[in-house]
């Protein structure tokens, strides 16, 4: 087997590092790899088209955009802020830990689409976290605001990734089961789910700890800003 198709990976790494638009980098990597493997250009373009068309389902979530936009126009983010301002104990870290728990527990129960970046983080969690910071620390710089938003997104990802494998019918568990079955091991999905629990607890401990430290970092940033 030839190692030349790995050239596409080099294109990816160099392209991303050089800051070229990711769409261009990805198409260039696909063409490099395919041509290096001896495929014809037309065959490659058709393969790109087929996979793009077959994966349209990942874009279904964008149907939510007009609804979120309509609610934002009526003041959804502002209302989310008002709600959190009333909770005296709220800090960015504690709020995001609460969301991390919610996300991990609901995905572990199979409710993956209950929360998400488009349906909860942008309209609710990020504005709430920003408001919690403003109540405690006063006006925040745009840098701090972006940092808080990035952490809000990270809480969603960590919660979803390290919760979903506890649910026995999730696609990754089924993939592991199917692959091991092909190799002659018949394993009950429940066993796979159980062995996902230690990592889920570790993920919560590590990310939760970092979210608490985020509170201290934000306080420090606010002090520096005042000086």
């Amino acid at each position: 087997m030839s190692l030349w198709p790995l050239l596409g990976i080099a294109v990816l790494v160099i392209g991303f590092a050089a800051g070229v638009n990711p769409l261009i980098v990805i198409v260039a990597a696909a063409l490099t790899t395919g041509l290096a493997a001896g495929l014809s250009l037309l065959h490659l373009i058709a393969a790109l088209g087929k996979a793009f068309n077959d994966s349209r389902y990942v874009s279904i979530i964008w149907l939510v955009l007009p609804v979120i936009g309509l609610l934002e126009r009526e003041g959804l983010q502002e209302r989310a802020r008002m709600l959190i301002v009333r909770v005296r104990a709220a800090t960015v870290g504690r709020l995001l830990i609460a969301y991390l728990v919610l996300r991990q527990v609901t995905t572990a129960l199979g409710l993956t689409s209950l929360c998400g970046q488009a349906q909860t983080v942008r309209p609710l969690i990020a504005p709430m976290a920003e408001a919690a910071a403003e109540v405690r620390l006063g006006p925040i710089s745009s840098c701090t605001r972006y940092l808080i938003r990035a952490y809000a997104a990270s809480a969603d990802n960590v919660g979803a990734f390290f919760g979903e494998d506890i649910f026995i019918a999730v696609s990754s568990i089924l993939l592991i089961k199917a692959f091991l079955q092909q190799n002659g091991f018949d394993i009950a999905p429940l066993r796979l789910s159980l062995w996902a629990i230690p990592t889920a607890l570790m993920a919560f401990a590590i990310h939760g700890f970092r979210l608490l430290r985020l509170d201290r970092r934000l306080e420090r940033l606010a002090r520096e800003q005042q000086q």
Partner: protein
Amino acid sequence: MIGLEQVYWLAGTMFAGVAVRSFGDRANRRRFGNTAFWGLLAVSFLFGSELGDLANGILVLALTALGAGAMGLGAPRTTSAAEREKSAKVKGNSIFAPALVIPAVAIVGTLTLGKVTIHGVPLADPKQVTLIALALGILIALAVALLRFRPPPLATVEEGRRLCDAIGWAIILPQLLASLGAVFVISGVGGAVGRIATTWLPLGHPLAAVVAYCIGMALFTMVMGNAFAAFPVMTAAVGVPLIVHRFGGDPAIMGAVGMLAGYCGTLATPMAANYNIVPAALLELPDRNGVIRAQIPTAIPLLLCNIVLMYLLVYRF
């Protein structure tokens, strides 16, 4: 029977609306670029199944060129910050109602839609109930929002356009990465990576095999953007032959923890666009790697935890 195709028509209609409104937006110097991009995306969702692979491939190349160099930011009509503040006070918490309708319908729909039949034909494709229920939840939420707030007639499209433009080209990134994955598969990238892993790594010790498998899962996931693509390759190259067969490890623990080691890679790569790059666009962060930066310090210790966990458990049960 309602399947994904009908949901795609809905998405296609939405993108077509965004394209039409982009065309009339003189505030955007690059409005033709936006119109073409959203228009082609509408074509993909409305007619993609009839177009044929090559035509779809050309469409992908056109979307790439437009997305990378021809799009600007539109100026859709919306409310001002002051108006929103006032509206939020007047409307109170009822404003959350439509947002909560979506998950409620999604859950109930997922549990029930597959079982509803009309003359023996299921109402919704039983294999796709989750996505169909999600789309249904969004439609009902839209109806509730329209009835409750009575916005101007074009507000739905304009607000959709505001958020579509905020995400911009990144909206097709997840699908484009799936295309790259497909090309990697037919080009034999997985086999080549597996060969490197087994020929160049010292794997003579049970710990070395676990370390190579977990780090390999994370790295290969970073390249592919998806742990699902890395799992079969790394498990066939290192997991099954070494950890299970040579050193007598437990396949269930290896598989479960190995997949999660891959997820540590997902946290740290721009290739996992829908988790890392799209949210950065959605939250309007100037640094498109901002979310990844917030996640890497979690990913690295968690990968170490997975290695330790696997080593302690896999040879014991």
